[in-house]
């Protein structure tokens, strides 16, 4: 987004209270708030450059794939309250994905649905950790811990993105992933420092998830090209390591020493798990193209 501000196309999109229909919330109606919605992004006049769109696509795919994974917990949670907690987190992530995919699609004349339902496995740009199976509750929490701490650090930096739409989406997402982080830490502490069985399972879950951590922090050419619109992931690593070390220490867990997985999600190379996930996510839209409900 190199466009200089002009009166007709301000570089910073108006996300103020008056810019959305909900500003007229009445005393008898609970307001859904004034945060940026995908519907607002869809009618924006600004279009991202191809590079910024590719960057937004990564962010959107990470959240979309994890939202679909977490959705698998619904009706299978250890308690109905936890079922709802994981479902809530999944819906938050789906909301972030909708915003990022809507914005990315804006560059190519595609809708969020075009991108979510009509791309194949090799066109998805999510990192490997997001597509990993849920496993037991401990595995899901280990994945949540890594992802939520990473996304918190990432969005906290992206709030200052040179791209005003990415900055606005990140500002909204940050409050939500901050809660996801809290949820994951609370459970890591309880499972790690709980019973012998919960400790054993939580440690095993960390070992299973840790090979996928490094890929999140790989820099590449796209990240260099988007410059100030994005964040170099490697610059988040030190804070990530410090925060994870503190949590694991308090939870009496050990940082796994395992070799990293090859990775390649940012180039469209995925583990065998993504194909099945997409098949389930896309089957309805592909069987009944254009259907609405």
């Amino acid at each position: 987004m190199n466009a200089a501000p002009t009166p007709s196309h301000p570089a910073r999109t108006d996300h103020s209270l008056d810019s959305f229909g909900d500003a007229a919330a009445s005393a008898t109606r609970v307001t859904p708030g004034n945060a940026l919605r995908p519907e607002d992004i869809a009618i924006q006049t600004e279009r991202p450059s191809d590079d910024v769109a590719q960057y937004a696509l990564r962010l959107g795919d990470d959240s979309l794939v994890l939202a679909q994974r977490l959705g698998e917990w619904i009706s299978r949670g250890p308690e109905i309250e936890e079922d709802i907690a994981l479902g809530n987190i999944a819906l938050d992530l789906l909301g972030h994905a909708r915003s990022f995919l809507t914005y990315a699609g804006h560059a190519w004349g595609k809708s969020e649905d075009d991108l979510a339902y009509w791309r194949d496995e090799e066109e998805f740009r999510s990192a490997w950790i997001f597509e990993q199976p849920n496993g037991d509750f401990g595995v899901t929490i280990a994945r949540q811990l890594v992802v939520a701490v990473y996304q918190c650090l990432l969005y906290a930096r992206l709030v200052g993105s040179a791209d005003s739409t990415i900055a606005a989406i990140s500002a909204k997402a940050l409050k939500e992933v901050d809660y996801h982080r809290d949820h994951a830490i609370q459970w890591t502490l309880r499972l790690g420092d709980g019973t012998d069985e919960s400790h054993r399972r939580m440690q095993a879950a960390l070992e299973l998830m840790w090979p996928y951590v490094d890929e999140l922090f790989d820099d590449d050419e796209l990240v260099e090209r988007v410059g100030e619109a994005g964040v170099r992931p490697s610059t988040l690593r030190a804070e990530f390591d410090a925060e994870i070390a503190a949590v694991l220490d308090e939870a009496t867990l050990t940082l796994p020493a395992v070799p990293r997985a090859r990775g390649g999600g940012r180039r469209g190379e995925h583990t065998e798990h993504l194909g099945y996930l997409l098949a389930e996510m896309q089957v309805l839209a592909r069987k009944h193209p254009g259907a609405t409900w």
Partner: protein
Amino acid sequence: MSNQPMGNQTNIWPLWEVFVRSSRGLSHVHAGSLHAPDAEMALRNARDLYTRRNEGVSIWVVPSEAITASDPDAKGSFFESPQGKDYRHATYYTKSEGVKHL
């Protein structure tokens, strides 16, 4: 997980009562109850269950077992006694002469 005991004797999480103060409310109002392994998680579950639509600005959780409730069967002796005791209402009394602003 559901058949993994979370507490010492039981595999069902304890019950908590949830009180939510809305943005326009002055006091916390009972919203419902939920299960959670401890108070911290009860607060978080309450946030997910009872403040989904911007309802709240503050939450209290209380262990259900800490609440002592009146006996529904003793309703008569408990709550009907004030009936007929008009003198407990201000309107029972006649206004004294010269008193203003009542």
